[in-house]
């Protein structure tokens, strides 16, 4: 069993706003081992980004309240002071963000920004840091790193900027790399390259990865385990294989249905999930997905727990329907409403 790096227990994050208290994350638990890739999938507002940023302590503020535990190598990061967190950020946990253009400071050179990251945590002189930076840029696949290290962010293309961000995040050998929608702002062709790069680097640096996205298709290759989040909670959790072949939650079916797939009959139209996400201030009664669920029934007025209902251990879901019903009816949703399957 690989080293358990991260253990999140019943994490809750609430924000006070002028309209009321927003329950952005409402009881999330998971574990992460070295060398593994955890995918977190969900729509905007599902709480996936807030979860990730909370791990780094980036959501702290006057209006934020936290409950639960975030145990990194045994230390509860929620209790660590902001000043002490500086030692964890970049060094133990690295993070990359969605838009590499705005995430890099436009007036400093790429090399300078990476050197800054290195020198924040290690006692090396500028020359050594610069040499390491060039090597990092080479590792992430940037051609001519010796010259490009002195370029400004606007001189890089979108894909290269993201590679540079990855280099920066990995520069101090963190144990965990958190990637928050790293491919969303990129062209489809580049997306695949970046995902591949992350997978390769994970092995090279022997770290774990948390990959956040709204698109199941993006992590279909590299994820080991996937969490599906909705309205601040995990609604399904399974290994990649189980999720794709035996999904148990109607929301997951909706997500799967909206990916174009080669191994299913082509539907007349891609399935969309009706309705919009609920207000995180006034959550619906009972199951939070009920208002949009085509399979809701009267038990759904009661809140379901995240439990294992199938035979496979480790595969949890939050839906009252019994497993047989699900296996019988999910194809309707996934294939976009036609009665016949392949």
């Amino acid at each position, binding site marked *: 069993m690989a080293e358990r790096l991260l253990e999140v227990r019943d994490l809750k994050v609430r924000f006070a706003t002028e309209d009321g208290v927003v329950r952005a994350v409402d009881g999330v638990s998971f574990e992460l081992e070295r060398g593994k890739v955890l995918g977190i999938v969900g729509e905007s507002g599902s709480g996936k980004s807030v979860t990730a940023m909370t791990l*780094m302590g*980036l959501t702290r503020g*006057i209006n934020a309240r936290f409950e639960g535990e975030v145990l990194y190598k045994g230390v509860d990061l929620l209790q660590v002071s*902001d*000043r002490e*967190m*500086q*030692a*964890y*950020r*970049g*060094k133990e946990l*690295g*993070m990359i*963000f969605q*838009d590499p253009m*705005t*995430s*890099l*400071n*436009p*007036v400093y050179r790429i090399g300078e920004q990476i050197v*800054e*990251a290195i020198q*924040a*945590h290690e006692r090396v002189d500028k020359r050594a840091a610069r040499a390491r930076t060039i090597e990092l840029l080479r590792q992430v696949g940037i051609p001519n790193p010796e010259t490009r290290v002195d370029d*400004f962010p*606007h*001189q890089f293309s979108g894909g290269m900027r993201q590679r540079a*961000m990855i280099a*920066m*995040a990995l520069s101090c050998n963190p144990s965990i790399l958190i990637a928050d929608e790293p491919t969303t702002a990129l062209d489809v062709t580049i997306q695949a390259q970046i995902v591949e790069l992350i997978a390769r680097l994970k092995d090279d640096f022997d770290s774990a990865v948390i990959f956040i996205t709204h698109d199941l298709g993006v992590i279909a290759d590299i994820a080991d385990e996937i969490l599906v989040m909705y309205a601040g909670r995990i609604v399904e959790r399974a290994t990649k294989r189980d999720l794709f072949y035996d999904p148990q939650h109607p929301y997951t079916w909706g997500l799967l249905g909206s990916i174009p797939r080669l191994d299913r009959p082509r539907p007349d139209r891609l399935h969309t999930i009706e309705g919009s996400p609920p207000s995180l201030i006034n959550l619906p009664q009972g199951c939070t997905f009920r208002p949009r669920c085509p399979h809701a029934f009267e038990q759904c007025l009661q809140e379901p727990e995240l439990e294992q209902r199938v035979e496979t251990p480790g595969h949890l879901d939050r839906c009252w329907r019994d497993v047989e019903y699900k296996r019988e009816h999910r194809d309707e949703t996934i294939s976009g409403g036609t009665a016949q399957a392949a």
Partner: protein
Amino acid sequence: MGAFLVRRVIGMILVLLAVSFIVYLIFIIIPGGDPAQRIAGKVATASNIAAIRKKLGLDQPFIVQWFDMMKALFTAKLVSYYDGTNVVGQIEQGLPATFSLCIGAGIIWLFFGILVGTISAVTAGRFSDRMITGLALVGISLPVAWLGLILRYLFAENGVGSWFPDGGYVPLTQDPVQWFYHLLLPWLTLAVLFIGFYGRVLRSNILDTINEDFVRTAKAKGLSTRRILIKHVLRASLIPIVTLFGLDFASVLGGGAIITETVYTLHGVGYYAYQAIGNIDLPPLMGVTLYGAMFIVVFSTLVDIAYAYLDPRIRLS
């Protein structure tokens, strides 16, 4: 960058030409009536009026008029008919006082404005922030003339406390200590308004910048709060301040400090203009207005160029 520079300089020259035309419009055309008589001022004599008409070409088509007037101004031949003094010469005499006032005040307001703005932004929402914001609001609401008078009344020799001289300018070369001493109250008067304003602008910029993505990245890298503040947040937030300062500084150097100079009887360029108003003497006003506009145009071009240099996206194109 080179092409950019050339374009800006050409633009600057064009604007200066246009500015001189506007000055001409303001003083000759807009008021209507007989400009020669107007310029001759209070002690107009018929021969004076005729002489003016000839020198400024006021009986010529207006392009020629404009050209002649500009020639008179730039060749330092424009004369005040009120007291026969040469306008450009008088402006030159006023420069030391104006420069002393403005440079000193400028340093003070830039330093304190940045200090105050940074403190209030970093402690946003807490007592120090509220107090600074309140004081800044009061600071920008005070009429400058009144503030000057109050300070004189409270602190200067003829008033309640007698710690400072009551106005007047002592040249630096004559007596540095007195020079400094005489300028303290005027510096304070001129700076208060700007400190309040700059503090507010900087506070707002900083609070906006803190929400930028690249600041989030800096935090995620584990940089110290101080480093993030200085190297990332302030570096971005100060740029608009620098631009603003360039323009404001040019504005006061160009005679915009007229009220402060008047209240403290500092014989600078602004004071010269003030006296001209009282005497309804137009040539000095024309001269000072043009002089002030030139300052701003030149400075704003310099600021634009500096800005472009500071932003690598433009510099390297």
